[in-house]
């Protein structure tokens, strides 16, 4: 392989990595998955009886998968500005996620102990809560930034 071919090959590889996004159809698929997961969560909470911990976990994961698909699917009219806005929304989501994970355990502990004499013990928040929060912030920021452009 010549030097030029090697450089071209590297450039294409980098471009593929940088431009990785799913087709716009996945946005709709993500919305359907989220809708189905939320409906099933209500059904599980109010209609089903007995121990449903496995179903609860599966539905939580489904919700995250749906939001992830919405997050990484291309916009209907995707252009370089939309790409930049999406990158910015990931930055905000990352910052918000870190701050949330740092502060929320103290808020939970404080509120719980302020309301009850013997409140909850101090504990870290779960991965589901952090990921859900980050994905929500990303989607909200992305749509807010798009409206502002």
């Amino acid at each position, binding site marked *: 392989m010549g030097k030029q071919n090697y450089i071209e090959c590297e450039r294409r590889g980098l471009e593929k990595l940088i431009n990785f996004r799913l087709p716009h159809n996945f946005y709709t698929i993500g919305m359907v998955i989220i809708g189905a997961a939320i409906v099933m969560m209500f059904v599980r909470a109010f209609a089903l009886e007995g121990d449903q911990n496995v179903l609860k976990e599966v539905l939580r994961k489904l919700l995250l998968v749906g939001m992830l698909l919405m997050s990484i699917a291309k916009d209907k009219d995707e*252009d370089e500005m939309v790409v930049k806005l999406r990158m910015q929304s990931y930055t905000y989501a990352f910052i918000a996620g870190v701050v949330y994970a740092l502060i929320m355990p103290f808020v939970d502990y404080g509120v719980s102990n302020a309301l009850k004499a013997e409140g909850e013990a101090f504990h870290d928040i779960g991965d589901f809560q952090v990921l859900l929060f980050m994905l929500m912030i990303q989607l909200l920021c992305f749509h807010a930034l798009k409206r502002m452009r």
Partner: protein
Amino acid sequence: MENTIKVERAILNLTQGDLAEKIGVSRQTINSIEANRYVPSTVLALKLSEVFGKPVNNFFKLSSDD
């Protein structure tokens, strides 16, 4: 960065939508570029140059804070 895309567009009698379609971006992106809210990439600047038939320097100028 300042630009005179709005003027160039008016000379060619193009709407934001027409120009957006010609260079393959959304109308909102053209609006943001015209309002100096977004600085386009070199690729987009060269596409604009091709549509307007003028060098990029003719409609993009560095401002004092660049």
